[in-house]
């Protein structure tokens, strides 16, 4: 079980691997599409890697509700709980 801070830094690493964005730019209030410019293919790659890293399942129908990085952290935290 990871804390929300640990999830955030783990997610930032995944986003960095996929997009090259610096990890410190991946903040809870950032929108994946509007702020981080992540397209749908990259988003699905991030989801696959997050499922593997955090041992959770993020169904496709829930992915579209993950607008910000904070949404994803909260979702993963709850799914782990």
């Amino acid at each position: 079980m990871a804390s929300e801070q640990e999830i955030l830094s783990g997610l930032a690493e995944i986003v960095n691997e996929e997009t090259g964005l610096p990890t410190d730019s991946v903040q809870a209030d950032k929108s994946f599409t509007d702020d981080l410019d992540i397209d749908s293919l990259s988003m699905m790659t991030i989801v696959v890697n997050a499922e593997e890293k955090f041992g959770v399942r993020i169904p496709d129908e829930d992915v579209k509700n993950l607008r910000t990085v904070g949404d994803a952290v909260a979702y993963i935290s709850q799914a782990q709980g």
Partner: protein
Amino acid sequence: MTATARRVVVTGMGATTPLGGDVRSTWEAALAGRSGARPISAPWTDEFELPVTFAAQAAVPAADVLDRREVKRLDPSQQFAVIAAREAWADAGTPDVDPLRLASVVATGIGGIWTLLTAYDTLREKGARRVLPLTVPMLMGNGPTSAISLEFTARAGAHTPVSACASGAEALAYGADMIRAGRADVVIAGGTEAAIHPLPIASFAAMHALSRRNEDPARASRPFDTQRDGFVLGEGAGIVVLESEEHARARGARIHAELLGAGLSADAHHVAAPEPEGAGVNRAVRDALHAADLAAGDIAHVNAHATSTPAGDVAEDKGLRLALGGAADGIAVSATKSMTGHLLGAAGAVESILTILALRERLAPPTINVDDLDPDVTLDVVRKDPRPLAATGRLAGLNNAFGFGGHNVSVVFASA
């Protein structure tokens, strides 16, 4: 060629090969007669008990050149293509060209096989949800040309001729046709391959196409030698920038060579074995000479396909002899696969670059490991050391590339 036809020139070259990470290092290694073959540094040769444990791996790993993100998002075949294309584009002086007049024609014989088979392993071991979304763009055969079209904003077309080991040469022929037909002014053209993976090795070995000289890799690729026993699998890419002469002159570009013409034929004989009398080779070479408006006696140098297989090398000799007749006696024939190994879909492109360099530098590279020339070979094979070509006058040369499936491609170049 008619007087009004658009002429096609080569203004840029790029390569990453078993001999070097760029054109210059590849050429210097070829002149020095160095072999790029070595034992494969991966655990899977033992794991699968492969009958062949060596290959000609890229001298500079793509991961040493590209950033980490590019390595993750591009199949190795795409990585090699991008590296070679960047070099070629810079070498051409980063042409200022309308995107609608710029095309990409980049071939591969096998495509994204590392991605395909790694994704299948993931599917079997971890299930469908773990298969990455970029799997298809990375495995598709048009992936390399797509990556280059995207990077250089080439919108006149992005194409991928697939003809096994003739693919790279066919890409150059297709690119030149696009310029002559007026579909583009500049074409980024070439071939790429990254198939040093246990499955292709097992498959080629099952055909008895690969040399099994595991104890002495550097001596394994020996085209035209009596002791040749198959080819050495290589990897890498070769990319050129083709340009209409008018466009190149208008921007003051340096011209490496002119692509005078190409000939293409199909054997329709056997899926893998060459037509033993060289009839298809003969037709491709004759058509190439016709397209170039040259006679056999105008050719100074041939970079042969010559892969080091027992049947193929002799069939090529016969085909060239049929097409060139007595003029063949005065032609310096080099088989550079003796050093690079066989880069499959990249071979025709890399060897076209070596042909262009031979004409430009007036020096035919050697064919190494020809200790005992096959008595059935009638051509004048350049052995051991590079051979100077005529010191003056315009030089013309020919590159051959043939592929499983019966594909024959011959491309004619002339020094600028």
